[in-house]
């Protein structure tokens, strides 16, 4: 199995951050005030926001999926290549990867 570069761990963390950013973007859409519109327009704005909240949440979920996917790749490599594990225990790259397994968000 090819070795996993440390960037994979870094990317996992960055996809986590995308998840946070997009979840908060979804909240912005969901909470956007419609009270300023006339009643006619408000009636169209409300379903628009509901639909878009779901669209943005979909992006957030996908982002988290990629973060988790990268972590699975790291785990698989780690577990399948015991020799590499033993050899690289003190390698800073491996330490970086190991840190990425600790999902912050």
């Amino acid at each position, binding site marked *: *199995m*090819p070795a*996993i*570069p440390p*960037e*994979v761990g870094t*990317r996992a963390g*960055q*996809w986590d951050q*995308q998840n*946070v*950013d*997009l*979840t*908060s*973007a*979804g*909240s*912005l*859409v969901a*909470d*956007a*005030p*419609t*009270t*300023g*519109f*006339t*009643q*006619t*327009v408000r*009636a*169209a*704005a409300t*379903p*628009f926001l509901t*639909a*878009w909240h779901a*669209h*943005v949440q979909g*992006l957030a979920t*996908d*982002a988290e999926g*990629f973060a988790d*996917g*990268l972590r699975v*790749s790291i785990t*698989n490599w780690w577990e399948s290549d015991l020799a590499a594990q033993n050899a690289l225990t003190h390698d800073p790259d491996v330490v970086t990867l190991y840190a990425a397994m600790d999902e*912050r*968000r």
Partner: protein
Amino acid sequence: MTVTLPAPPATVPTLTCDPASVELFVTDLLSASAQIDDLGTFVPGTAQIPAWTGDDSVTYHQEIKPLGTRADAMSLALRHVSRRASQHATALQGFVTTHDDLVLRRATLVSELNSLRLQAPMIPPEQLDDFGADCTQLGNRIAAFDTDVTALVTDLGAEEDEMVAAFTRLQTLDQVEKRYSGVPDPADAALADKPPTSAGPAAVREWWDSLTPAEQYAILGASPGSIGNLDGIPASVRDRANTVALERDLAMLELLEERDQLTGSEKEHLTNARATEKALADVDDHVDPITGEPVTSQLYIYDPTAFNGDGRVAVVAGDLDAADNLAVITPGFSNDASKIPGITDNALNLYEATRVLGPDQTTAVVAWMGYDAPDGWDSPGVAFEQMAENGAERLADTIDGINAIRDDDPRIVPVGHSYGSTTTGTAATDHDMDVDDFVLLGSPGPGDSAEHASDLGVGSDHVWVGSNSKDIVADLGDMGWVNKGNVELGLGRDPAEDDFGANRFRAEATDRGMGDNFGDHSKYFEHNSESLYNVAQIVNGHYDEVSSADHKYDPLFGGPTDPEKDRDPGTTDTEGHN
């Protein structure tokens, strides 16, 4: 002869809407769009892992690509709807104005009609012709009025239809991808031509003006950070860009707070973002004392993580793009972005005072926390000089930026308080600033290079000093033949002394303390104080209205003397209440 009274004017339909609230809707959508745009940039950029090989890598790179494409299309779609809503808010504002005008016109027409009705039974036959002419004339005005009411209803209906269509045409992902998938972002080409910061604010202004409105809005949605703090960009645009950034920060950091996942620096970031939000809300909550309209707020600088987390923020009370008179308040010791609500309160007081004392002039006051002020721990010795010099350069850049966005020649008055007066004085001596007057309040000294008021570059007649006699900080500067020596107390000369040659104005606090104290150092912006009254008159350019104070002096025999100590403080009206 028969005279027919005209029919009553049409009823003006109720219009229930709030354009300002629609603008909040716009900002929320634009902020979300910017966040999604970042994902679109992330996928083909940072998310790539070229060094990674193998099946997992191939799968990863294949699967993220459509997500990036979808994000790009979604950000363009959401930005489009946001822009349409912004245009809708502008249109609504116009309808509200027309509506209000029609309500007033109708009241007048009804009153005149009632008057004719009352007169009708008593008109003698010989005056019937004149009466008939009056009726015809009123009838014509009512007909014109009815036409305007119909036009309002028609125009409003058409505008509503277009806004509704904007929502319904881009509601599903299919609709979004059909219309925007693969469409290039107009922001990319526009940003490619952006001049470097070193080109100066005039070049930035020229670039911005060369863009189409669509390109300008695209940049707001795609890259608000690239223009939010860029000198030469109009204040209203910077406000929109920075508000988008603020909304994003608050949404993201509050989510982390909710999850109990904030790091130490993120906590500081959130504190600064919330302080900025509060300062803006305070401005929005105030009404102009002359017009009764809400005071315009502008977020001119928003960089909440600058200076190792102290933050860099400037909030404006008023419209920096259009006001006649501009003041820039630079605060002093112990200030950072978390204090921006207090600095903004001072700016609001000055705004209100300038309006009350000069109702025919408009004002914008900047609460400028745009530099790294000493906070007590990073402050001794050399750091003071460096902080003043760095702050001075940033203040001079801000002033240059303001001059670049104005085609006219507004009055500009930097107002430095405490160490902010050192920063302001240093900016004046070290940089070529195009301003009209300087005001130094509670000054421990205007910096090393200012030996005399004339060194500030605007003529000593235009250097104004407010120094209350109980302010212990204002006593720190050098005076007369007394150079306080190697145990340096101040930051240059005392600008209130006679030898410095500035105009000293009355600035005693209404409730001044018994002896020298720190409390009186913070009272220069209190309503109804001599100080606020005089600063407002200076900002308005009403020099004759400024009440002068005798200078401090340092006789050869005896210690430094402040004649203001023996004068009873007066009160003034800066609120219009008398």
